[in-house]
C-alpha cells in the first residue's frame, strides 16, 4: 500500500531524513516513533506531497507522489501536526470546503454527517472553529482527513494536546479506523504506539533504528538473565549466599523494601538461568523469596536505548570527519 524507498531529505547540509525505507501493507497500523526533531513530520510531509524528497521515492498504492501527485493525493487523508483549520470558518463551511477541495464524489450531505458522527463533532457543527477547544479542533482536523474515505490515513501526533479521556477516544477511533484504512501514525509518546499500532518504526536523527512489532522489539532487547528479587532475611548473609551461585556476575543490594526484606538486582552470565539454584539455596536456609521479576525492558527503555546508542554512533561519525 505504501512503499518508501531510500528516502532522503536534505536541508542545506543537514539530512533531516536519511535514506529510510519501509513498507506498509494494506490495513496495517504503523507507528512512527521518535524523539522531537527525528524526522517524523518531514517523512510524513514527503509522503503526502507537501515536501519533495531530495532522493528516493514514495509510492502510495503504486502511484509515485512526485510523478503522479494528483492520483496519489486522492488516496491520502492527512492530519498534520497542527490541524490545517481556517479559524474564521464554521465547522460546516470548513468541511464543505475540504469536501470540494478534495474532489470527493461520495454523496455530500450524507458523507459529511457520517464523518461528523464518527469523530463526534456533530454538536459543534455550526460553530466557528476558532472558538472550539483544542480537542474539538483536533477532531475537526481528523474529520477533514477522513473526508472521501481515503485508503491511507497519515496522522501526525493525533493526540497531542488532548486530555486523557479524549486521548483514549481518539486512540479507539484510530484502532477502529485501522480495520478499513492503512494508517501511519507518528508519536513521541510510547504507550500510544503500544496501544494502537501493530508495527513500530523507530526513527532517530533521520534514520530508522528499529522496525518491528512492539512485542518483538521488547523481546529482542530485553535480557533473560537479569532479575530483581525480594528476599526476607539478614541482608549481609543473603548477599554472601547468592553471590556464590555459579554464573552470577553481580549482585547489588537495593535496600530494604518490606519489613526485614531487601531487594537485590541479579546479573547473571548470558545463557545461565540462576533462578532454580536461587530458590533451592534460599529454601534450605528458610529465607523466603517474596518477589522475583525479570527486568524486561519496557518500550520506554528500548526507545531510550535505541535513540541513545544511535546518537553516540553519530557523534563518532562526526568526530572522524
Amino acid at each position, binding site marked *: 500500500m505504501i512503499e518508501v524507498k531510500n528516502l532522503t531529505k536534505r536541508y542545506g547540509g543537514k539530512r533531516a531524513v536519511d535514506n529510510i525505507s519501509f513498507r506498509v501493507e494494506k490495513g496495517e497500523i504503523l507507528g512512527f516513533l521518535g524523539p522531537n526533531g527525528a524526522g517524523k513530520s518531514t517523512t510524513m510531509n514527503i509522503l503526502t506531497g*507537501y515536501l519533495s524528497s531530495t532522493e528516493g521515492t514514495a509510492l502510495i498504492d503504486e502511484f509515485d507522489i512526485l510523478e503522479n501527485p494528483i492520483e496519489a493525493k486522492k488516496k491520502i487523508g492527512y492530519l498534520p501536526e497542527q490541524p490545517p483549520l481556517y479559524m474564521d470558518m464554521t465547522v460546516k463551511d470548513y468541511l464543505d470546503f475540504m469536501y*470540494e477541495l478534495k474532489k470527493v464524489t461520495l454523496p455530500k450531505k450524507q458523507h459529511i454527517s457520517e464523518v461528523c458522527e464518527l469523530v463526534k463533532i456533530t454538536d459543534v457543527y455550526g460553530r466557528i472553529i476558532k472558538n472550539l477547544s483544542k480537542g474539538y479542533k483536533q477532531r475537526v482536523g481528523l474529520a477533514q482527513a477522513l473526508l472521501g474515505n481515503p485508503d491511507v490515513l497519515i496522522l501526525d501526533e493525533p493526540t497531542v494536546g488532548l486530555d486523557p479521556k479524549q486521548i483514549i477516544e481518539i486512540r479507539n477511533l484510530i484502532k477502529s479506523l485501522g480495520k478499513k484504512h492503512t494508517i501511519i501514525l507518528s508519536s513521541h509518546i510510547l504507550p500510544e504506539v503500544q496501544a494502537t499500532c501493530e508495527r513500530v518504526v523507530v526513527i532517530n536523527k533521520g534514520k530508522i533504528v528499529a522496525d518491528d512489532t512492539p512485542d518483538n522489539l521488547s523481546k529482542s532487547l530485553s535480557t533473560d538473565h537479569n532479575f530483581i528479587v525480594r528476599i526476607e532475611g539478614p541482608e549481609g548473609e543473603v548477599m554472601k549466599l547468592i553471590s556464590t551461585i555459579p554464573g552470577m556476575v553481580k549482585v547489588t543490594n537495593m535496600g530494604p523494601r518490606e519489613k526485614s526484606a531487601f531487594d537485590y538486582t541479579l546479573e547473571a552470565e548470558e545463557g545461565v538461568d540462576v533462578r532454580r539454584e536461587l530458590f533451592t539455596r534460599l529454601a534450605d536456609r528458610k529465607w523466603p523469596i517474596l518477589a522475583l521479576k525479570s527486568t524486561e525492558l519496557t518500550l520506554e527503555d528500548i526507545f531510550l536505548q535505541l535513540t541513545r546508542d544511535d546518537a553516540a554512533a553519530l557523534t563518532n561519525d562526526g568526530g572522524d570527519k
Partner: protein
Amino acid sequence: MLAILKRELKAYFASPIGYIFLAVFCLFAGLFFFAGCISNASSDISVVFSSMFTITLFLMPILTMRLLSEERKQKTDQALLTAPVNLFGLVMGKFLAALLLFTIALCVTIFMVLLLAAMGPIEWAKFFGNFLGLFLVGASLISIGLFISSLTENQVIAAVGSFAVMLALYMLDAVSSLINNSVVKTIVDSISISQRYSDFTMGVFNFANAIFFLSIISIFIFFTIRVFEKRRWG
C-alpha cells in the same frame, strides 16, 4: 480551483476586508464622479477612471496581503498542497477571488455611466476602454500583490511590501522625467503602468498595452507558483 475561489470570496466578507475595500473604492469613485462629472456638468467619465488609478494602486495591498501569507501562518497550506489540486489551480483560485472582488467594486462605475447616459450622449467606446484598462491594471497589481504575499507568512509585511512596490510603480513617471539618457528613459517609460493605462483612459485600445498587462499577470502568477515549488524542494 473553484473551491478555493469560493472560500476566498467568503473569507473577504467574513472579515471587514471585503467591506472596507468596497466601501473605500466606492467612496472615492463617488467623490471623483461628483467632482469631475456632476459639478463640472461633464459627461466624460474618464476623469473618474484616471483618478481611480491612484486609489486602486494604494488599495490593492489590502486585497492581496493575506491571500497566501495567512495560509502559511495558519499552516492551512498543508491542506491545500496535500489535496489533489495542482499549484496552478491553487494560485489561480486565489487570484480570481481577488480579481472578482475588484471587478465588483469596478462595477460601481457602470451605474455612474448609466446615470450620465440618462442625461446626455456618452462616448461608449471611451467608457469601455477605461473600464477594461482599469480592470487590467487591477489584475496586474493583484498578481504582483499575490506574489509578494507568497514570500512571507506575515500579512503586515506582505501589505507593506506590496505597498512599497505600488508606490515605486506610482513614482516611475516622476523618475522617468528626471532621466536624461534616452535609452534608460525608454525602458522606464515602457514598464510604467500609468503610461500604459493613460492610453486606455483616452479611449485608445493599443494591443501592445493589453499584452503588457497580460504579460505582467502571467509572469507574476508563474513566479508565485515557483515560490511554492521552491519551498517544496527547499
